[in-house]
């Protein structure tokens, strides 16, 4: 192996990345916009989870002034937003199409309401309404206790997920798709005609992508932190090492995809097939706690699952490197497997 050759390809790839202004900008802008968007959406403690329709509400009347007849605890609950309709027919149409969860006729006593039996949200909204109507003495059976210790905002929980997702897409498409395109248009054939070895080429691609991923990560992190002020309970260095392991692993997975093929369309399909389940099952957006055991077990085959688990342990729980060592070990073990597969399967022109 000649380091000079590896360095030449490493530099060329980095130059391409930084000079492709559209892709370069998008790599930073995409995670930044997602984080910023969710930061704005979830800046409060509550979000409106349920939509309740009221009718008849005249066109020019406010729905808020028409809910006095409802129990106060229901009418002012922040998780519920109210929508007014002029007629019952309009409200029923929205209810049937699950646009609202519950429909109530204003000013009725007893309160008349409609709910769809097939709507889980509707069932919960109905329970909320019935609970609000229950006698006050029943509330004495409960006593609220506050969460002790660290309080994690949703945005703090989400942040590593979005960064990990961006890393995943950038690693898979930035290596997998790009190398297949190079194979198709003859760039790889041109390189094969030189003394450059497959190992040197793959190593340069791997190192270049890791460098670019970590560079992007730091820039996006600093930018988002300045605007939203993230709380990191663990060490930033440990977090960096966790993301480094994750980027290495996912870039190696990209090399497996890049190892063969000349069809960009087929490669795109394979990348979608891998990245979409990984995005949904690796807890980027939501936890799969409570999902069937087989689904939770399946999620462990994805590198992103281990990356996010370790990153959240450090960032949200303040864990040290030793605590996340199992995840880091798994990520590097996966890396080794992917590299061996990628190198064994690699072809310059097939």
């Amino acid at each position, binding site marked *: 192996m000649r380091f*000079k*050759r590896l*360095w*030449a*390809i490493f*530099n*060329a790839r980095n*130059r*391409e990345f930084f*000079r*492709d202004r559209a892709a370069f900008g998008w790599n930073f802008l995409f995670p930044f916009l997602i984080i910023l968007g969710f930061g704005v959406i979830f800046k409060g403690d509550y979000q409106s989870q349920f939509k309740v329709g009221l009718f008849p509400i005249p066109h020019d009347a406010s729905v808020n002034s028409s809910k006095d007849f409802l129990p106060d605890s229901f009418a002012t609950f922040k998780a519920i937003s109210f929508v007014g309709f002029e007629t019952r027919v309009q409200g029923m149409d929205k209810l049937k199409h699950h646009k609202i969860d519950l429909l109530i006729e204003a000013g009725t006593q007893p309160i008349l309401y409609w709910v769809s039996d097939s709507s889980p949200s509707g069932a919960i909204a109905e329970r909320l309404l019935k609970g609000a109507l229950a006698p006050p003495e029943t509330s004495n059976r409960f006593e609220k206790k506050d969460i002790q210790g660290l309080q994690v905002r949703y945005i703090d929980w989400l942040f590593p997920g979005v960064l990990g997702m961006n890393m995943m897409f950038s690693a898979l498409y930035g290596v997998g798709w790009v190398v297949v395109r*190079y194979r198709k*248009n*003859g*760039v790889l*054939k*041109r*390189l*094969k*005609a*030189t*003394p*450059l070895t497959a190992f040197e080429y793959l190593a340069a691609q791997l190192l270049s992508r890791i460098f670019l991923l970590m560079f992007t990560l730091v820039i996006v992190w600093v930018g988002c932190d300045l605007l939203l002020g993230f709380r990191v309970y663990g060490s930033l260095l440990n977090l960096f090492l966790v993301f480094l392991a994750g980027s290495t692993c996912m870039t190696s997975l990209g090399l497996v995809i890049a190892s063969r093929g000349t069809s960009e369309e087929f490669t795109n399909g394979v990348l979608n097939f891998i990245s979409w389940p990984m995005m949904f099952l690796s807890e980027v957006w939501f936890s799969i706690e409570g999902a069937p055991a087989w689904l939770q077990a399946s999620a462990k085959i994805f590198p992103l699952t281990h990356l996010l688990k370790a990153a959240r342990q450090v960032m949200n729980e303040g864990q040290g490197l030793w605590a996340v060592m199992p995840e880091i070990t798994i990520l590097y073990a996966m890396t080794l497997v992917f590299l061996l597969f990628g190198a064994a399967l690699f072809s*310059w*022109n097939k």
Partner: protein
Amino acid sequence: MNMTDTVDPLIEVIDIQKHYQRLRAVDGVSLSIGRGSCFGLLGPNGAGKTTLIEIIEDIIDPTGGTILYKGASRAAQFRQEVGIMFQQTALLSFLTVAETLQTFSRLYDNTEPISHLIQLCHLEEVKGQLNDKISGGQKQRLLLALALLNRPELVFLDEPSTGLDPQARRNLWDIIKTVKSQGRTIVLTTHYMEEAEKLCDDIAIMDKGKVIARGEPQALIQIHCRRATLSVPKDQFPEKPDTLQGFINERGDRIQIRTENVNAVVGQLLSMGVDMRGVNVKTPTLEDVFLKLTGRSLRE
């Protein structure tokens, strides 16, 4: 004729075959390429030229057969000593012409100074431009510069002037002639006869995966197409042409005389009082050789 019989061969191709399922892209080709020669591989599209040349370049594997370089199997050093200009190549995006040359120069042990190559291939004006912003002719010259970067002993040029306008083609030929004058061995594939005639001193004609003729361009023409064609306006043609040394036939408003002895026929026509200003003489070309051997045009 023995296809492998070349004095001081740099490359020896022995019974090379390449099969794609039922298609025999290269069907038992044997030939040798002399050191310092410019060897041309001619044939129509689909003849198997590119497949054969890529097998020699060690880019694709043959189904069978052997390639010898300097009398032995090609080792790792082969890539250090050959320069290749492929028929269709994209270049690394977002790099300038000079950066592309620098990047590739770092892949070799022994390289030509980049400034020399830029000068040789007339890339001075575009050296700072991105690869995807240069013209087709400039791109071909850049690809040629890349092929010459490592001071190669053996240069492969696969259809180097395809798609270029006549001026750009002639510019490229001038550069190739300079490379040839430096004593390097050149292997050139083309379906332009003019290109082969101007640049090559040894030619093999391929069709349907086989080499069907081999030799120097003029020798091939002499062997396969000895007759030139003189075309005389019908109204000037002598009334009694019986003594003319050739085959005569009528084509529209002209009479054609096909002959092996052009000088004699011209002398006869002059003595018969024919005004030579209206007479056209067409000497045979490699195109005629190919047409005679295969019944098809080279560009079909």
